[in-house]
């Protein structure tokens, strides 16, 4: 029996970001669940190298059209090509005659904006990137933000900042701080990517601006690395990148079977919203409670005590306690414990690690103490919590 010949397919992506990697994972998932067999061509470091692509003897290409060099190189390709990239408000942003699978930039920004509105914010700003051919997606997200502001009769405050390089880091942060200081607070800020959001979060820390009380911040990509690099967990919009990969693979599969899909354009909406501390805004909070919670959020896991929080805020312990009781109905100690417990729950859910290790990392003085807190607050031991949360998709209704 003759085996069917596998099609030779090139994937032109820069797989150094979570978004591109998820698209590639979606393509792989499509191949794994079908009997389609493709020989995939990718560089060993998953980076896209174009020279010579026009002479490549293959059967089809799926490529990242956010990169203008890719658009140019594939404009006259004789092979079936499926383009993947950001959506455009204007039709002329799309390449002519090539099927296109897009992440819906307008819906991404709208999801972030609606979330900030729900969180109680009434002033908004956008942290973008300097205009450049390689980040037209950032300009599209900016445009979406401005359109939403115009729709709701608000002033669109967009800051692009400077492109960062090592010598200009300090200057970039200073300019970000100046911009942050110029904004009327509280303000909800949408950053065009998690990487950008992380930079702004750092600027907020430097300038002593409380997040989320004064600045509520949301990024795009749900990048675990950006989350790991910030002390305050960053809220983020999750793009439908895997679904984009599956869709692109399906389109190319159809084209290899002879379908003509030149005008096909499929916009994939965001897959979800990861709401974390950076947008858990509570309007109308007492300024000292706000400052104290900002401090607790950053240092709870380092074993701080009520005294240190009061020192940071610059009031007596009893005054701070009174404000906490009045505003939140709990003590400063309870608030610290609450953050430590949340951190411990997150670690136990995500990592298979030792309970003792988690206790240390979350600032519990002893394992026994963490055990007691879990029993009291959650009715189970840390180990039971870990097992329960790691068991596959508990299906009991």
């Amino acid at each position, binding site marked *: 029996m003759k085996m069917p010949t596998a099609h030779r397919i090139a994937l032109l992506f820069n797989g150094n970001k979570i978004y591109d990697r998820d698209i590639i994972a979606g393509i792989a998932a499509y191949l794994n669940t079908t009997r389609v067999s493709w020989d995939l061509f990718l560089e060993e470091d998953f980076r896209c190298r174009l020279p010579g692509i026009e002479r490549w003897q293959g059967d089809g290409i799926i490529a990242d059209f956010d990169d203008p060099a890719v658009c140019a190189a594939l404009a006259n390709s004789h092979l079936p090509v499926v383009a993947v990239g950001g959506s455009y408000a204007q039709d002329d942003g799309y390449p002519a005659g090539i099927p296109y699978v897009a992440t819906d930039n307008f819906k991404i920004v709208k999801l972030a904006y609606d979330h900030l509105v729900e*969180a109680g914010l009434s002033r908004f700003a956008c942290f973008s990137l300097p205009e450049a051919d390689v980040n037209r997606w950032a300009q599209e997200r900016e445009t979406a933000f401005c359109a939403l502001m115009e729709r709701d009769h608000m002033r669109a405050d967009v800051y692009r900042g400077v492109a960062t390089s090592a010598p200009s880091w300090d200057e970039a942060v200073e300019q970000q701080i100046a911009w942050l200081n110029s904004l009327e607070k509280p303000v909800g800020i949408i950053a065009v990517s998690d990487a950008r959001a992380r930079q702004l979060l750092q600027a907020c820390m430097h300038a002593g601006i409380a997040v989320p009380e004064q600045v509520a911040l949301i990024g795009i990509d749900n990048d675990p690395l950006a989350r790991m690099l910030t002390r305050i967990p960053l809220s983020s919009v999750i793009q439908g990148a895997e*679904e984009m990969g599956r869709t692109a693979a399906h389109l190319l599969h159809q084209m290899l079977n002879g379908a003509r899909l030149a005008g096909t354009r499929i916009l994939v909406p965001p897959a*979800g919203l990861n709401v974390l501390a950076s947008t858990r805004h509570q309007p109308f909070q007492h300024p000292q409670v706000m400052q104290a919670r900002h401090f607790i959020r950053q240092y709870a896991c380092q074993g701080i005590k009520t005294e240190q929080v009061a020192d940071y805020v610059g009031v007596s312990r009893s005054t701070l306690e009174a404000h906490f009781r009045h505003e939140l109905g709990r003590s400063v100690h309870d608030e610290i414990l609450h953050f430590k417990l949340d951190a411990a729950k997150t670690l136990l859910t995500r990592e298979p690690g030792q309970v003792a290790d988690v206790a240390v990392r979350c600032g519990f003085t002893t394992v026994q103490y963490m055990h007691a807190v879990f029993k009291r607050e959650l009715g189970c031991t840390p180990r039971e919590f870990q097992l329960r949360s790691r068991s596959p998709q508990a299906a009991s209704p």
Partner: protein
Amino acid sequence: MTMSVSSSSHTLSNSRGMRVQVNPHDASLQAWWAPDRYGRLADVLEHAMAAPAAETPGARWQCEAVSDAGLELRLAQDGLCVRLRYRLEDNGGLHIDCEAVAIAPARIGLAAPAFNLHGGGMVADHVLRLAADHYLQAAAVTEVAGSAFDFRQPAPLGARLAWPGAQPAGTVGFDHGFCLAGDGLLREAARVADPASGRELRFFTTQPRLRLQSDQHRFSLATEALELPCGAAARHTFVYRLGVQDIDAFDISESVSLSLNK
């Protein structure tokens, strides 16, 4: 304590403030108030996609409230006895237990509730996950693999309908049967999430098949009508459970093999 119900609707409630309204005359669901990720309540039910099944025309249900969270409906007509029990749990699950005995051949079809998890607007961006390896196309069982109907990984309804050939001309949504993995035990068959509100619906059933229907503003997940031969008894349980999306559990990077029915 039991009490008879005569008003035009009966409300079930749970300890978390969720409320479900049942029409005691035709046993249909009228409203379901459920919180979004911000704790705000909205009615997530729309008018049913199809008119209530005509198998029991003019049927009069006897209705009895069992508790704040429970309701029992009985129907005895033309040689068919049906007992339908609704129970709203604190975890947001609405258990529906249907027991039937037929003296003559009978068919029981309950109108499936139609949802809009955002509480209004479009459902195109609702994300669906289905534990189905096969779907029904013109009565033939077809693999979902490689088609727009492969929801073993979560996918948005609207974007899937945009796949070439997914939506026959003149239609505005899904109207497809799916064959579920699993074997008669109550198991999770489907999950739908609305990224905007964070609401998530999980559907559990004991039946082998499911029908997905949708248009621009609503969708429904329903099991097929129960066919009862003469003298037969049947029991069918299904659960709609409304909660808030857990981002980690709905992880889009989860492995391909789906084991929702573990």
